[in-house]
Every structure is written in C-alpha cells, then in structure tokens.
C-alpha cells in the first residue's frame, strides 16, 4: 500500500519520521504497513536472499498494539510501527535464529536479545531475520550456509558482510531499519557496499545479551537505516546499560536525535596518512577525497595525522578474533541445541557434529584460533596480538588528543562480484584494513554514503570518534548527508 510521503506519490523508501506521521494522520495503519513490507519481501527476496525467516505473527501482534494506541489517541513510542529486520545472529524468541549456519538450522531461542526487546518496547515491528555470513565470519555474505545475498544496487555483486542481509534489506526497501553486528567491520562495510548509513557504537554502548557470540571482546550490535537521523533514532533505543551484559556500560546515553543537528564548523578532523597508502581502489580514493572537501566547505579543520600501527591491525585482529571464536564456538557440541550427528561415543559425536555442522570459513577460523592459543604458540601469536592491540588503541587515543574525529574510507574497494574472492581467505581478510582498527580500539564508527563510482557502485566514508563519542560521529555524518556528501 504505497502512500504519499515527502511529496512522493509512491513511497518506496520510508523513514522513521515518515511512518510516524502517516500513522498519526491515519493515512495507513501499522498493520497495513507491515503487510505492505511483507508483500515487498515476497516480491524481492527470492532474488536477493536477504531474509532467512519471517515473523509475521509477531509483527501483526505488535502492529495491532500500535494501531490500538493510535485509535485510543495515546502517545506513540519513538519507533511506533517501524518495520525492522534483525540479523540472524541476534536471538529472537520463538523465531529461528540460525547464525547462517547448518549447525543451528533448527534453533529457536527461548528469549529475546536485549536490543530486540528494546526495539519492540519502543514500538518497532520485527519483520524477520536477515541472512549473514556463518556466525558473522566473512566480508561478503558468501559464507552463509543458506546461500549468498545479492547486492540490491548491483545484483551480480556481494552486499558485503557479514551483515549483508540487513544492509540489503534496508537498501532494497524491505525494512525501514535493521540491526546488524560488527566484529571487524560487519556493519560498516556492508553499509558502504549497499550505499546506506551503518553504525557501530563504542564497545559497551549496546548490550550484547542475546547476540550469539563470535569474538566477545569485539562484537557489537548496531543499526542500518536510510538516513543518519534514523540510525541515531535506532541507536538511541538500543543503547545503554543492561544488567544482563556485564560489558554494557553505565556511561550516560545522550539524546542522539537532538545532538545530530549541532553545527560542525570548527571541528578538527584527522586524515590518517596511513589509511591512504597503497591498495585503495582509485574510484574509492576519488570519492573519499571529494567527501573530505565537503567537510572543508562546512568549515571543519582538516589535519593530517599518523596512526603508525594501522598496518599491523589485520594480523592482530585475525589472531584475536579467531582465538575468541574458537573458544566461543566450543559450545556447539550436539548436546543442548542444534545439529547432532549420532555416534556411539560422546567424543566422536562431538567431532562428527562439528565437522558436519560448520562451514569452511568457520572451520578455518576454529583451526587457526585453536592453533594461536595452543601450548607453545600462545605467546608468539595470541599474547603478541593483544600487545599490538594496545598499540593500535594507543594510536586512537593519541589521535583524539589532536582531533575530534577521524575520516577514512570504509573499504578499500567497492562491492565486488559474487564468487570473485572466495578462494583466497587472506585477500578477503586484507580488505578489512580500514574497519578492524576501530574494532580493536573499541571506538565508535559510522559508514556514510559518499558518492557512487561511475554513478553505480556506492562508496562509504568512515567516521571514527573517541570512545562514547557517538553523538559527535552522528553529528558529522548528518552534516555530511545534509551538505550533499552522499552524492559527491
């Protein structure tokens, strides 16, 4: 049911504000809106493969609650009626949560993740679960046991990963917003590939309760949407202390939607020379340079900075992330949930279950992670990786004594063709160079659309802020969007 919005006759792209106005003006009901999104999903998902499971009953119940509020003339919660998608590594009570893995093919969580609970409490309508790389391990969404997602911008290309389904769903208008998770770039890079804003808050900003763990010291939940304002609105709802996650912090949560409109004139923006070295696609470089010019026009001060340990981030990241993964994934043993491959002996049952249930990338990371933690190699790899992590975090702390935020590309390349990189894991890892640094340091980062190469392939500009400086990051991204940065 397309309705007029922002002067358009046929609304294909809803915003949170647009949904709210349409509901309040009774131009559409929450139930009709949800039904309209399911119609779109039915039409487009067979091609894109962005959704793995839908939760229409849950969506209808929630929509009816919202419609009852409208009918009763009651105040509407901040995300009233907003159709959202949830990455399939985030637990949803009663709806299958597979992590893109065969080992959890039939897993139905008995509880909701805190982020999901908070979205729903704020009025959002949960449409379903989105495809992703298996256990969020990948940068192209090609590691899903349920087939790759296609990039809605160019369907012969990957949507990025690991939150490829969430990015594709929002970019294709199959959800107004979505939750993804970011361990080494898994929100920001697919946001960049699909041409939408995508944000990772500081480590500890959003509760991880109910997020099925990949690398616990790095994993974060964050939003995708079609505008920075909507990203801010989602973050607002999911941020803040949760007693169920001891790593969620008590740091106060500012009012992000109020903060984003503040002027950016005079802010000092660091351009790390180390990120603009070899290996960046020429088209990406051109767009990022044009994006930086936008900030110059906005009156920001651009300062060249050094972050000397950047070149070591991939190596440190893939030690730490795989080590933590090997430990976290030990729980899939065929006993309590998921797949079991029977055998008379318990140990053989474990081995067969895990051998049959995990895909190639997950097995590769379990082997690598177990190796770097094993006796005789721990100091040389894992401990070394942790020490280098200290140096990378120090690079960020030093930088933030001189600048208010840091600008970089999100990815050295735009969306690549499906199948193009699957045979070379190291090459795939190396493309995470600009995102893993902020993951290791724990700082917040956003990818905001920054033009399209040849008018086709989106480029993402990444903005890092200091820990718990989400408001600053959002403010800069919003100003960029308003100043036409998305079409440079």
């Amino acid at each position, binding site marked *: 049911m397309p309705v007029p919005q922002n002067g358009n006759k046929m609304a294909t792209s809803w915003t949170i504000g647009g949904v709210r106005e349409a509901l309040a003006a009774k131009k559409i009901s929450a139930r009709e809106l949800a039904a309209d999104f399911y119609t779109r999903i039915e039409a487009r998902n067979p091609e894109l493969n962005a959704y793995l499971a839908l939760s229409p009953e849950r969506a209808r119940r929630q929509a009816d609650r919202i419609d009852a509020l409208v009918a009763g003339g009651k105040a509407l919660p901040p995300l009233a009626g907003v159709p959202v998608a949830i990455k399939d590594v985030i637990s949803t009570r009663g709806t299958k949560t597979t992590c893109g893995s065969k080992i959890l093919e039939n897993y139905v969580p008995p509880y909701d993740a805190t982020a999901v609970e908070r979205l729903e409490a704020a009025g959002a309508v949960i449409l379903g679960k989105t495809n992703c790389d298996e256990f969020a391990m990948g940068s192209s969404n090609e590691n899903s046991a349920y087939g790759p997602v296609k990039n809605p911008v160019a369907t012969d290309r990957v949507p990025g990963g690991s939150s490829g389904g969430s990015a594709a769903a929002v970019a294709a208008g199959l959800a107004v917003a979505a939750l993804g998770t970011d361990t080494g770039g898994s929100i920001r890079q697919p946001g960049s590939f699909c041409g939408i804003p995508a944000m990772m808050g500081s480590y500890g900003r959003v509760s991880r309760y109910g997020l099925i763990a990949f690398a616990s010291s790095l994993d974060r939940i964050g939003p995708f949407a079609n505008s920075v304002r909507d990203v801010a609105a989602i973050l607002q709802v999911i941020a803040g202390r949760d007693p169920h996650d001891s790593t969620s912090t008590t740091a106060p949560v500012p009012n992000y939607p109020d903060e984003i409109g503040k002027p950016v004139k005079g802010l000092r923006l660091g351009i790390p020379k180390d990120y603009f070295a070899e290996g960046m696609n020429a088209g990406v470089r051109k767009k990022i340079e044009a994006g930086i010019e936008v900030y110059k026009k906005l009156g920001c001060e651009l300062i060249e900075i050094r972050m000397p340990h950047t070149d070591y981030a991939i190596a440190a990241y893939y030690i730490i992330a795989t080590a933590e993964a090997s430990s976290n994934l030990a729980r899939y043993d065929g006993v309590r949930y998921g797949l079991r491959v029977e055998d008379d002996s318990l140990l053989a049952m474990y081995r067969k279950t895990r*051998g049959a249930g995990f895909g190639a990338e997950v097995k590769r990371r379990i082997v690598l992670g177990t190796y770097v933690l094993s006796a005789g190699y721990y100091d040389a790899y894992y401990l070394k990786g942790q020490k280098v992590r200290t140096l990378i975090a120090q690079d960020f702390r030093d930088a933030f004594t001189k600048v208010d935020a840091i600008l970089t590309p999100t990815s050295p390349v735009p969306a690549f063709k499906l199948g193009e990189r699957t045979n070379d894991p190291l090459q795939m890892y190396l493309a995470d160079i600009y995102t893993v640094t902020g993951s290791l340091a724990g700082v917040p980062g956003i990818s905001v659309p920054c033009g399209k190469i040849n008018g086709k392939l989106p480029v993402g500009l990444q903005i890092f802020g200091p820990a718990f400086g989400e408001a600053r990051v959002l403010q800069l991204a919003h100003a960029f969007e308003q100043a036409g940065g998305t079409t440079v």
Partner: protein
Amino acid sequence: MKISREDVLRVAELAYLDLSEKELETYRAQIDEILEYIEKLKELDTAKVEPMAQVLTDDQTADATLREDLVVPSAVAEDVLKHAPDPEPPYFRVPKVIERT
C-alpha cells in the same frame, strides 16, 4: 612452512572437529599463508607493552562487577529442552560416557 599437516590434525583434535583429507590440506595451505602474513607483527618491539584483553576500564562497568546477588525467575528449561537434539526432561541425553568393564 609455518604449520604442518600434523599441527592441523593436533589442533582439530583439540577442537573436536572432524576434517576430511581435502579440508585438511586446503586449510593447512590457507592457514599457512595467513600465519606467514601474521609474521609481520614481529617487526614491532612489544617487550614493554601490556596486552589488551578488553577495551573497557573497571569504572565503566563498576556496577556490574559488584552487583547484588539476587535470585530471579528464569523458567526457560522447558523451551530449552524442547529444541535439544535428544532431550529427556529434565535432562539432555548424550551417548554413554563411562565404559562398563
């Protein structure tokens, strides 16, 4: 060569992970390449650097480290067992672990 076939077998055993012959060789070669790349960390002198296990400081999670120990209802046992591979409420059933002599 950084990692041998025997290393991969040993690690797969530690991780309770069955690997086919083909997987074994493919992963060995790929992980070998990754470990070669990781060697670059040796360029950095980290003798005086503290390892970083997590990013948050104690004061940022102060209430979490010393919260009150309260009993709250959970009541998910039935749900959990319902989706287990081989449930026998209130237990999970597994293959026999203790051999009879």
